């Protein structure tokens, strides 16, 4: 390419660019939309994770809805209490601090506990395995262990332990609920951090079957139901369920009487965080 062509190209393209940008800036002046300045301030105060757990397209969209009064301040799980206070100050409303939630894996049937019915060779995804044959494990209620929840977590708050079960790193978990949606078995639940007692099993099978499938399954023996007063733990189709409105926030519970160790108290969070995965 000779010099003239180069020059012509530069001038023509530069000229076109200048022409269009002049037109656009003129149009921008004419068609300017005056926006509430608080929208930007609120957007900046929000965590900017854009996880979508609030139900809006992203933090900016949520901020817009907050300013227009259509969204609740409690919808964002990720925002710290400081951020919520700041936003409440910007909007001139009372900050409503709700208890943060955290994801809990409601299954203890790892590779060591659950019996297997077959070997699954296929796409290493819980959803695929669940659609195919229901995974390797006998139990049709428990964790499949292929880590769809781990892949779905935008905060790296989950990892797979040696036993093939996902573990929640509480410090990182924001309670956004992405893992809950990703789990095809519904094994993951969101609980307020104050919930300390859990029945970590989802199996509704008959006691004999449940015991055969997993050494840590709830076998519906009802010992826990009898050990507490009425209604605090109820039986739902061979599975014990805790009524958290009545019970479960205290740590003084008959967990040692559960024959399969599926009634568990999370003593304190330090214990749960003991084996935090290396990043």
């Amino acid at each position, binding site marked *: 390419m000779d010099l003239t*062509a180069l020059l012509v190209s530069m001038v023509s393209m530069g000229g076109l660019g200048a022409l269009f940008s002049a037109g656009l800036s003129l149009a921008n002046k004419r*068609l300017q939309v005056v926006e509430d300045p608080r929208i930007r301030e609120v957007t900046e105060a929000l965590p900017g994770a854009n996880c979508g757990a609030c139900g809006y397209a992203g933090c900016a969209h949520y901020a817009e809805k907050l300013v227009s009064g259509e969204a609740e301040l409690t919808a964002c799980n990720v925002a710290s209490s400081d951020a919520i206070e700041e936003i409440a100050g910007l909007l001139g409303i009372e900050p409503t601090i709700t208890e943060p939630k955290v994801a809990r894996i409601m299954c203890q049937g790892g590779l060591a506990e659950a019996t297997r019915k077959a070997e699954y060779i296929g796409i290493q995804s819980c959803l695929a395995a669940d659609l195919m044959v229901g995974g390797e494990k006998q139990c049709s209620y428990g964790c499949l262990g292929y880590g769809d929840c781990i892949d779905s977590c935008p905060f790296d708050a989950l990892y797979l332990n040696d036993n093939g079960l996902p573990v929640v790193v509480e410090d990182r978990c924001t309670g956004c609920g992405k893992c809950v949606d990703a789990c095809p078995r519904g094994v993951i639940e969101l609980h307020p951090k104050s919930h300390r007692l859990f029945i970590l099993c989802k199996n509704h099978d008959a006691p004999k079957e449940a015991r055969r499938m997993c050494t840590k399954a709830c076998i519906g023996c009802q010992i826990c139901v009898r050990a507490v007063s009425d209604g605090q733990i109820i039986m739902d189709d061979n599975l014990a369920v805790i009524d958290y409105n009545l019970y479960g926030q205290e740590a003084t519970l008959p967990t040692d009487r559960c024959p399969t160790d599926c009634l568990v108290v999370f003593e304190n969070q330090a214990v749960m965080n003991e084996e935090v995965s290396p990043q």
Partner: protein
Amino acid sequence: MKIILIFISAAVINNFVLTYFLGLCPFVGVSKRLSSAVSMGMAVTFVMTISACVTWLIYNLLLVPYHIEILEYVSFILVIASLVQLVEMFVRKISKPLYDALGIYLPLITTNCAILGLALFAVLRHYNFIESLVFGIGAGAGFTLALVIMAGIREELELANVPRYFKGAGITMIIAASLALAFMGFSGLISI
């Protein structure tokens, strides 16, 4: 006569979406509601028509005389991007709900291959100015037609008993393919 044939050809027979498979992103993305599909079709038609005219002018009055046809992609993208910016400002000014409904697909018109395809086709087929203009309107009308048919079907689909595993993206792809097959029936009707 040729002008009418160009219009029909661009709108129906060689439909950009259903025959050339260009601009599939907004075709799948903005065809959930009939109202937003019509608006999106209008926006794309506007950009297509104006860009067909402007790119013709640039190509024939600037690129050809100075023998810099090699820069057609750069200059065409420049035109399209500027026009899309203009449309975005305009839509935001006149209708905030529409702006929200179109969402990310409005700025994505910039990278919509249907519009660049239109400009390049017009050059390739040696259309004159009027023919380019009609080609742009026809292609826009065809895009709108495809989007509206799709949106109409998808609105009805919400009431239909779709098998669980086909719900969402699956059934959308199947319908898009069926529509494309139907439009293939027009092929060869006229050659232009």
